């Protein structure tokens, strides 16, 4: 336990630096990318009107002053007012979060539940028909663009078979196709990595020893292999989780899913600085928290990590 506190402290410090860097980069990039005011006003608005709105939004002040105000506000949890929605940026983003979490979590659960057993099975039955078929599918899942998978599912499952709604958010039926589309890539990555991690462990000396001792194959896989193969699997699974929760622009757009990915893109087009900053900041927090959890899990799984 003695090593835990410094470990946590150093992690926290790194997380804070990462957050500061992320928010600064977003701030600078958004300012470099252009002015929101011409997008807000009709095309025939006179210049005086443009200057008036710029002043109203505080965009006429020096960039450094804007930056200082921005940082001060972020420290107090205030991301400013959305230029487009005319309400608190945090409230806007928070309104989109449940949809994103619902979709991200479903996609993740679907991906993990399908991919982990398939990965293990492919490794154990290496070069069998099952292995070939599942890894072939995984290759498709990893290489087919999300856009393509999404539209294909809509056309085949919704339109031709008439089984599920084409788009929008509602009950569980609305969730199936977007979760499958979004989860496809993660599912494929996790399955492939699980397979190679398990294969690597299966060829280790201690597995040969276990088999030589007469341990049953099932026990070899479950007890001796899985735990040792867990570190890379947890890493990739955790990272995929972060990615899925960070909003999925393409899936959300194809299925008209009201999540933060679409919000972020729309806000970038609208140059809605406060909303973009808030979305990126929250996504970064999420990612950092997940990474932190992965680190903790490493420690639980592998005593060597704790020792170092």
């Amino acid at each position, binding site marked *: 336990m003695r090593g835990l506190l410094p470990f946590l402290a150093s992690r926290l410090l790194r997380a804070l630096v990462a957050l500061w860097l992320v928010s600064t980069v977003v701030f600078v990039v958004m300012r470099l*990318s*252009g*002015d929101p*005011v*011409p*997008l*807000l*006003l*009709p*095309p*025939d*608005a*006179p210049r005086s*009107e*443009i200057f*008036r*709105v710029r002043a*109203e939004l505080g965009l006429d002040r020096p960039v450094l002053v804007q930056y200082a105000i921005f940082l001060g506000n972020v420290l107090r949890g205030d991301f400013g007012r959305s230029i*487009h*929605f*005319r*309400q608190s940026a945090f409230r*806007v983003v928070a*309104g*989109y979060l449940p*949809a994103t979490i619902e979709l991200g979590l479903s996609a993740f659960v679907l991906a993990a539940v399908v991919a982990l057993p398939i990965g293990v099975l492919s490794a154990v039955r290496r070069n069998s028909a099952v292995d070939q078929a599942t890894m072939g599918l995984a290759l498709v899942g990893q290489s087919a663009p999300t856009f393509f998978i*999404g*539209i294909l599912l*809509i*056309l085949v499952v*919704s*339109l031709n*078979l*008439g*089984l599920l*709604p*084409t*788009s*929008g*958010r509602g009950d569980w039926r609305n969730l199936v196709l977007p979760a499958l589309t979004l989860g496809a890539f993660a599912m494929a990555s996790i399955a492939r990595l699980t397979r190679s991690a398990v294969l690597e462990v299966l060829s280790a000396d201690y597995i040969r020893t276990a088999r030589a001792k007469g341990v049953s194959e099932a026990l070899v896989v479950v007890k001796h292999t899985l735990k040792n193969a867990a570190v890379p699997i947890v890493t990739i699974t955790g990272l995929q989780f972060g990615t899925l929760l960070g909003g999925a622009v393409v899936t959300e*757009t*194809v*299925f*008209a899913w*009201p*999540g933060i990915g*679409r*919000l972020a893109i*729309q806000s970038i*087009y*609208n*140059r809605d600085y406060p909303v973009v900053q808030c979305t990126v900041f929250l996504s970064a927090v999420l990612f950092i928290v997940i990474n932190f959890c992965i680190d903790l899990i490493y420690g639980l799984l592998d005593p060597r990590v704790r020792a170092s």
Partner: protein
Amino acid sequence: MAEMTRRDVLKMAAAGAAAALPGVVPSLAHSQGTQKRELVVAQGGDVAQFDPHMSTSSNDIRVSFNLFDNLTSRRPDGKLAPGLATEWKLQGQTTWVFKVRQGVKWHNGDPFSSADAKFSIERTYDPNAKMRVSTVFTTVERIEAPDAATLVIHTKKPDPLLPARLGFYGGQIVPKKYLDAVGPDTFGQKPIGTGPVRFVSWTKDDRVVLEANPDYWGGRVDFDRLIVRALPEMAPRVAALLKGEVDLITQVPPDQGERIKAHASTVVSGALYGGLYVLAVNSGRPPLDNPLVKQALSLAIDREVIVKELWRGRGVVPSGPIAKGDNHFDPSLPALAYDPKEARERLRKAGYKNEEIVIETTAGYMAGDKPMAEAVQAMWRDAGVNAKVEVLEYSVRAQKNRDKSFKGVWWSDPTSTLRDPDGMMWRLLGPGAPQDYWRHPEFDELGNAARFSVDEKFRADAYRKMTKISLEHFPWIPVIQPYEDYGLQKRVEWTPDPLQQLEIRRFNFKFRRA
């Protein structure tokens, strides 16, 4: 349990599939009409907010024109009809008197009066209110509401188009008492109007739910609920229509129209856009300062091919800078000519030295913008013009529009907001206007005189002359006046609007009932 045969299994699967195919049932019912009480509309983007004076975007006005009423109402046939004003007349040169409809109630039950109208119009240009439509009523000097049924608007100079201005964006009438009580932010989230539908709920980037206003002065609409969904991608939008999940979709591109027409229960309905798609020209930049070069560029565009191939016939070739359907459109003018030989000749006369001419286009901001830019580039190259396409992101285009920094020619889709050249050509090309890259003393004089004249004969003559000048100097190179197509269920009877409104009032929308 008895063992199931393979035939049993197949029977069960068939029954299951039929039960899981809800689309089949409504499509059978189409021929006999529908009992539907809910109208579902899908458009390409969500509403930003509901305050009608805070936005001019088409996704917003499709909703705001139905939540609110204007004093005058622009019908899909292009004519101006009574709205919250029952009649109006011009007294002298600068005083417009409106008789305001009596017995109208706001959605919360408050009575509507001329004071609301006065408040609404003044609000658009009140610098403290900071509205986004502050340029609509710049001709107004002051407004009086002497009694609940009368509104008097004094203009700075004669303004023949004031009733038309009141019929489009900026002219929606908002409730003074409610706005004073809740403030603009709450109003933008929970609006109250006098329109045929009232606000129920809004899930951002998903749907807006509205319900019929049972006491609407123009008659209750033919449904109980209106749901406006945001479906950004075209393919899923069309799929939702074909599956019967939605009744009406907007912005159908010509290639998707065929699919919708081929389906048993859906149709395509279009309105000729109240405006033009033009290549606007930076006439300040050589060689585009030479009228001969611009004439050659216009002559080198084969517009028939663009209409036929890229738009599958869903458009017409313009004859000049005034849109078909507008006041003072001259039907006797021939469509703009294609003559590559003459184009080469004029380039030679102009002394054109192969200078690069840049076509700045967005990809998807305007329907067909990039493919059309590429087609024009090829046509210009064929005529010996060194043309180059550059693709811009939409917000970069907006920035360039503001800075007036376009390099050569760029796409513009001017909307004829007043269905009159003043609201299009003069609004955008006049001195100090957003596309002021070219000045011509006679053009300016005529445009200014026509704006402030209440003599329609004089105005007609002025616009005829301005058209002639513009076809010599080409501040715009008009390319196409397209149809704006919508996909509809056959159970829907509805006429689309040339100005991108979604008119669902009783006179324009009904379900075919069983």
